């Protein structure tokens, strides 16, 4: 096998780039959504369960081990922050992809927090889960005007996950929180997003898996928001 490939590889080697056999690079693939581009929920659930598994095992590189020994800080990161990190780059990609797919008249970047959060609540949620999020609220605590909440009654990612009682502070929707954080960071509204389960487990509760994504913007975002709001 390797000897038969060697002459071909030599010819293309001047650019160091290898083309797939069909000659089609990623630049040839269409960006607009084809009708058959849906993914089955079962495949996603299978992949996601493996991701949660990976995030919860304390798999670290040698550098992480060294860092933890040297600094004696609270390393390794918890599994929810690992899931958060895994979701972050997806948010960045979604931001531009969804903006590209909108019709040219409505292609606008979000200039303030409410527009951005509406974009997340409707466009991003529709793209990921097929329906808009169930609620968007501003925190009623006057000491924390920079906290906003996106509410999802039944996050798709948690459908096949059952969390054991000794890890009850873990909510696997931290992955979706990472995606939301990626969208906010990409749009120049840096934020910290965490997922909290507020559904009660008794019978009679309509949405036991109800999750709140708490979006806490950094202070410079609020400063800019106030400045723009005044002018």
């Amino acid at each position, binding site marked *: 096998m390797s000897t038969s490939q060697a002459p071909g590889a030599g010819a293309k080697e001047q650019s160091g780039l290898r083309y797939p056999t069909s000659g089609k690079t*990623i630049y040839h693939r269409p960006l607009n959504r084809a009708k058959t581009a849906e993914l089955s929920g079962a495949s996603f659930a299978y992949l996601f369960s493996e991701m949660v598994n990976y995030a919860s095992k304390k798999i670290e590189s040698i550098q992480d081990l060294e860092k933890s020994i040297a600094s004696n800080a609270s390393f390794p990161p918890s599994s929810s922050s690992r899931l958060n990190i895994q979701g972050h*780059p997806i948010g960045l990609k979604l931001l531009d992809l969804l903006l590209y797919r909108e019709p040219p008249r409505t292609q606008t970047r979000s*200039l303030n927090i409410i527009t951005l959060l509406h974009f997340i609540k409707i466009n991003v949620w529709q793209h990921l889960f097929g329906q808009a999020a169930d609620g968007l609220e501003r925190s009623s605590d006057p000491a924390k005007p920079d906290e906003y909440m996106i509410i999802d009654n039944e996050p798709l990612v948690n459908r096949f996950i059952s969390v054991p009682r000794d890890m009850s502070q873990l909510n696997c929707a931290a992955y979706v929180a990472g995606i939301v954080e990626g969208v906010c960071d990409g749009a120049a509204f840096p934020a910290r997003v965490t997922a909290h389960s507020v559904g009660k487990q008794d019978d009679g509760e309509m949405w036991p898996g109800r999750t709140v994504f708490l979006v806490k913007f950094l202070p410079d975002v609020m400063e800019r928001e106030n400045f723009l709001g005044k002018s």
Partner: protein
Amino acid sequence: MSYYFVIVGTQDNPLFEHEFGTSKAGGDGQARFPEQARHMNQFIVHSSLDIVEEVQWGAGQMYLKCIDRFFNNYVSCFLTGGNVKFMLLHQPPSSAVSSTGVVLANPRGSTSTIAANPTSPQTEEAVRSFMLEVYESWVKTIMSPFYNVNMEVRSPVFRQRVAAAGRKYL
């Protein structure tokens, strides 16, 4: 008529650079920046980044048109959703005769061509179409799972796409 196209990341770092010239009205597609001023292009574009940041919060459009002018150079900008800036610096040809005695600008080229008039509506439209095509290739680039934010773009296919868009519209 020469163009210098840069993609600037979120940390004001250049991710992709491309110089080219106009292929319309008899141009041959080669950039004609004067040798000693060629490196100034980077500084001019960098200084107009401040203006981009000022303008970007005023309007929500992605294409910001011509935002800055430095002597003979005009800078236009297109802002993506992820705050990555596509900056195009265009330098209309001077009609002065060069030192070798050959007139660089096409004498038959009328002043209504895109080359000569960087702020006319036709130019704005042409630059906007160019930017939209580059934006399409850009979204495909960032969709790659191996592309991290603010990474340099080295794909020769991307360069070909930008060059083709430049030939088509500018």
